C-alpha cells in the first residue's frame, strides 16, 4: 500500500465530488478505517445536501421583469453608451456651426410631451431620491424662497402640493434641467423613509392638456398629466394605488391655483 496520505483537502474534495475516481476510492477506503473522520465527512455531506435543498427553490422562482436579459440588452441598445455620446459631442464641437445640423439627424430623437415628462420625473427620482447627502437643494423650512425661486424660473406661479394628509412630508425641492427647459422638483417622504418626487414644468405647446396616465420604469412607477399647459408627474416606489391617489391629490390642489 503506497497510497498518498489523505489530507484535509482530500476530505472536502470527497464531499464536493471533485476527486478523480481512483482517489475517491482511496478516501472511501480510508474512511472505512476511520469512523471518527467518516462521521465528520458524513456531516459535511449532509450540510451540502441540506443547503442545496434549502436554496434550490430560489432558482426556480419566475424571474422578475427587471432581470429580463433581453430587455436589459434592448435598453442598452437604445441608450447610446457614454463613449458614443462623447464621440458625438466631440464631432459636433469639431464640425461646429454649419456642419452641426448634419449630426443632428444621426442622434436618437428625444421624446416630447407626456413621454418626456414621465422620463424626466423618473430620471430625477433615480438621481435624487437615493441621495443621502443632499436630495433637495432647498429644504422644506425654506419653502417660501423655494416657491419664489422656481416660480421665477418657470415664469409662472408654482404651488407646492401639500401631501401631509396622505402621510408624505415635504422634504424640499430644487430646479431640474430638462431638454424642455427648467422644471421644479419637490420631494416628500413618509414615516418609513419612502420617497416620492413631483416634477412640474410648462409643456411648451406639446400635450398641454393630457389625462392622467401611468408610467413605469424598472421598479419606479408614476403618473403624469397636464392641465392648462403645465405638466406634472409624480413618481415613487410605493404601490401604484397609493401613487395614484397621491397624484389625484396633487392634481386637485394644482387646479385651485
Amino acid at each position, binding site marked *: 500500500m503506497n497510497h498518498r496520505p489523505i489530507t*484535509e*483537502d482530500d476530505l*472536502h*474534495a470527497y*464531499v*464536493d465530488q*471533485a476527486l478523480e475516481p481512483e482517489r475517491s476510492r482511496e478516501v472511501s477506503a480510508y474512511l472505512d478505517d476511520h469512523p471518527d473522520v467518516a462521521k*465528520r465527512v458524513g*456531516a*459535511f455531506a449532509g*450540510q*451540502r445536501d*441540506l*443547503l*442545496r*435543498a*434549502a*436554496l*434550490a*427553490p*430560489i*432558482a*426556480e*422562482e419566475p*424571474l*422578475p421583469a*427587471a*432581470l429580463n*436579459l*433581453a430587455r*436589459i*440588452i434592448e435598453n*442598452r*441598445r437604445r441608450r447610446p*453608451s457614454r463613449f458614443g455620446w462623447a464621440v458625438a459631442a466631440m464631432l459636433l464641437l469639431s464640425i461646429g456651426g454649419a456642419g452641426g445640423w448634419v449630426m443632428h439627424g444621426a442622434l436618437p430623437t428625444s421624446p416630447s410631451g407626456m413621454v418626456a415628462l414621465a422620463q424626466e420625473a423618473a430620471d430625477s427620482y433615480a438621481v435624487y431620491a437615493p441621495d443621502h447627502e443632499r436630495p433637495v437643494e432647498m429644504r422644506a423650512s425654506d419653502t417660501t424662497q423655494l416657491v419664489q425661486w422656481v416660480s421665477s424660473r418657470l415664469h409662472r406661479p408654482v404651488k407646492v402640493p401639500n401631501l401631509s394628509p396622505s402621510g408624505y412630508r415635504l422634504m424640499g425641492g430644487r430646479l431640474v434641467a430638462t431638454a424642455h427647459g427648467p422644471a421644479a422638483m419637490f420631494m416628500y417622504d413618509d414615516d418609513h423613509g419612502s420617497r416620492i418626487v413631483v416634477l412640474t414644468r410648462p409643456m411648451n405647446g406639446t400635450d398641454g392638456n393630457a389625462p392622467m396616465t401611468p408610467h413605469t420604469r*424598472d421598479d419606479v412607477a408614476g403618473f403624469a398629466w397636464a392641465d392648462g399647459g403645465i405638466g406634472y408627474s409624480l413618481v415613487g416606489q410605493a404601490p401604484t394605488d397609493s401613487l395614484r391617489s397621491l397624484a389625484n391629490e396633487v392634481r386637485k390642489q394644482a387646479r385651485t391655483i
Partner: protein
Amino acid sequence: MDDMLHQVEPLIPALRRYARALMRDRASADDLVQDCLERAVSRWYQRRRDGDVRAWLFTILHNLAVNQFRKAASRGRHVAIEEISEDSFGEAASQEQKLIYQDVLAKLARLPEDQRAVLLLVAVEDLSYAEAAKVLGIPVGTVMSRLSRARERLQQEIEGGAAQPSNVVSLRSAT
C-alpha cells in the same frame, strides 16, 4: 448579443440564488443581480474569450456584493435583515422541511461573509475550487482553508443548536 443571451440567460437563476443566500434580502439581492447583468452586457466584448462565462458572472456579482457589504459596514448597519419567508420554499416542501431549511439558512447567515461565500460557491453553485478562487480573488489554498472553517463552524452551529427554535428540535427528534 444573441450569443450573450444564450450564454448568460440560463445562469440568472443561479446568480439570484447566490445573491439571495449572501444578502438574505430578496429585493437587494435582485438589485444586485440586475446591476451584475447590466455590467455583463456592457462588458461582454471586453471579457476574456477563453474564460468561463459562469465564473466571470459570479466574479462581477461577488464584487458588487462585497461593495454593498462595505457600504453597509461603513454606515454601521446590518445588511441581512429579512428572514427568508416560508413561502419562498415553494409548495413542494412540507412544513417540517421548511422549518429545517429555514433553520440551516439562519445558521449559514451566522458565518462570516468570506466563509459563507466559499461554501455557497463550492457546495451549492458547483464551482470548482480554482473557479471559486478566481471569483473571490484569493489563492486556492485560501479557498480550501475557508471552506474547512466554514464547514466546521456550520457543524458547530448545527450540533450546538443553542439558538435553535424549539419547534425544530422537536420535529427533528420526532423524525
